[in-house]
């Protein structure tokens, strides 16, 4: 793995620089997005047992938040080389996502996103997470209310991969990325479940205990417990674990080679660029 050690420091400047203003926009948007993911845990009703209908307008508001971040990140213009690499990796991710459809529980979406976020930086990872999911949804005519949630969650995964400590190289880097991939797989599943939980199971109506569904006005712990059982029963044991295992395996088997390829492309793009 000496090639990795040599190239580990090759990319020091992220492809899509996060200026302080972009970081502020990203932080605010993440807060707004997290509020819309976690709303069942935050709802505070005046009278216990008030009926709460799911806020359907979040389904329109969340895309606005995502688009604002994308507009901000590309506000200074995106370099043609960065854009081309972004386009290629988006296409690869869309293909990888298309492969999943037939194989329940085996998902290849995230390993390339994690590796690309690691090499090209946090801003690039965020945009790649958004464009990958959007492109694959467009190709399969799968644009639905779930898409903004998926886009934001996978954008966070790409962002987080770019924020991992830079100094770690070699085998330690692969180990770190595998650990991150596993955590990301479970967190993604958890977030997506949280976003669909009140919609799929319904909101409990007063005097009508809904079993595992969200009860507005109940203490946070009780709702968390209900959600925990729901997510454990429906996906943590099956889909999420499948995703985590595929992520880990793909990063172990393909990670070193792909990291080298991506870093070589980054170096070449830099070499070709005119002196500024």
């Amino acid at each position: 793995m000496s090639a990795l050690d040599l190239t580990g420091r090759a990319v020091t400047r992220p492809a899509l620089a996060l200026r302080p203003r972009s970081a502020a926009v990203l932080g605010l948007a993440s807060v707004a997005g997290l509020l819309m993911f976690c709303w069942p845990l935050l709802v505070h009703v005046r009278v216990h047992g008030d009926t709460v209908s799911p806020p359907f307008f979040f389904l329109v508001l969340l895309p606005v938040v995502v688009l604002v971040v994308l507009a901000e990140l590309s506000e200074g213009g995106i370099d043609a080389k960065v854009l081309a690499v972004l386009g290629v990796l988006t296409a690869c991710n869309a293909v990888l996502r298309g492969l999943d459809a037939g194989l329940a529980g085996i998902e290849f979406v995230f390993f390339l996103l994690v590796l690309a976020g690691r090499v090209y930086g946090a801003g690039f990872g965020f945009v790649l997470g958004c464009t990958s999911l959007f492109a694959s949804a467009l190709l399969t005519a799968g644009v639905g209310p779930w898409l903004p949630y998926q886009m934001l969650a996978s954008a966070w995964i790409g962002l987080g991969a770019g924020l991992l400590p830079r100094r770690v190289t070699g085998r330690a880097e692969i180990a770190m990325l595998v650990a991150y991939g596993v955590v990301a797989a479970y967190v993604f599943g958890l977030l997506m479940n949280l976003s669909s939980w009140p919609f799929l199971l319904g909101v409990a109506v007063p005097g009508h205990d809904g079993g595992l569904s969200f009860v507005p006005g109940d203490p946070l712990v009780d709702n968390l417990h209900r959600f925990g059982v729901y997510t454990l029963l429906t996906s943590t044991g099956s889909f999420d674990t499948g995703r985590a295992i595929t992520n880990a395996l793909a990063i172990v088997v393909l990670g070193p080679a792909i990291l080298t390829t991506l870093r070589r492309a980054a170096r070449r793009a830099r070499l070709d660029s005119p002196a500024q």
Partner: protein
Amino acid sequence: MTTAELPRARVRVRQLPRELHPGAWWIWALGLAAAASATTNPLLLLLVVAEAGVVVALRRSDHPWSRAFRLYLWLGLVVVVLRVLFRVVLGGATGTGTVLLDLPEIPLPHWVLGIRLLGPVTADTVLAGLYDGMRLAAILICVGAANALANPKRLLKSLPPALYEVGTTVVVAVAILPQLADSVRRVRQAQRLRGSGHGRRSLRRLLVPVLEDALERSLALAAGMDARGYGRAGDLTPRQRRVTGTLLIAGLVGISVGVYAVLDQSAPRVLAVPMLVLGALAAAAGFVSAGRRVQRTRYRPDPWRVPELLVAGSGVLVAAAAFVLLPHQPAVQDPALTAAPTLTLAALLLVLLGLVPALVAPRTSS
């Protein structure tokens, strides 16, 4: 051509098959979805779904994405069935009303909140799950109608200027897909010629050259884009850029505060909906401001003509009418679980407005 034929020729030109602007279809479909989200009346919801189905059947094109609608119908059905099943399996014991099916109760240990499985299935349990599930299914099916009707490639072309780069990225991704397939084919052919067989490393041997090839091409593409003047930055003053940043940040702050206030009902009501609206407006203004830097001309832009206006308008009207009229008719909006749901003429008419596209939208093929 004689003068008598001229008017007819002009009429035929107007009826030439063409694709409606994808934005119009999305506005219409989101309008119907918003109307569906405002009610749990199964009759109204069925009407909305039927309308979406009729319009899709009459106005969809021959493109592959047009066949997606059927998938969304199945998805809607799955949602309804899941919802009712969850109710029956998890919450049956607590329902009231007529007992439809007396199933035995299975208590679970304490760590799962003492949830009981099964139990007597009552009419209320089933109906509540059914109505709620139908609402979600109707929303999904409306979005599915937009997927089937709107051309995604044209939608990408008409993205707002602020998303120019991101839109270009997705266009590049969509355009590059056939090249990826071609690349995979060539690499496999070369591997066969070299006689390398299957094995643990075959995946890496396939993926790495394909990725390498794709990245190589992307750099060539970037050089081509640079040569054609892609990188030309607009001339915005630092002040204009500060305005953009301020608007975007103010918008996000407004949205965050608004969302929190909507959820926490003990917060002052001024902070809820007004703050949300203000935040969204500021964000939209920032969006427009960010788009000013992009100076580009568009080859054959999609026109926005009268049919587009009528289609989008019908969606907006249905949504607006649903939110204004239905709260005055609570029995129609959220029918009781004990009696058959009813409709009023006003509710019927307002929902039927959504059928306008079936009449005014141009055909996509002759």
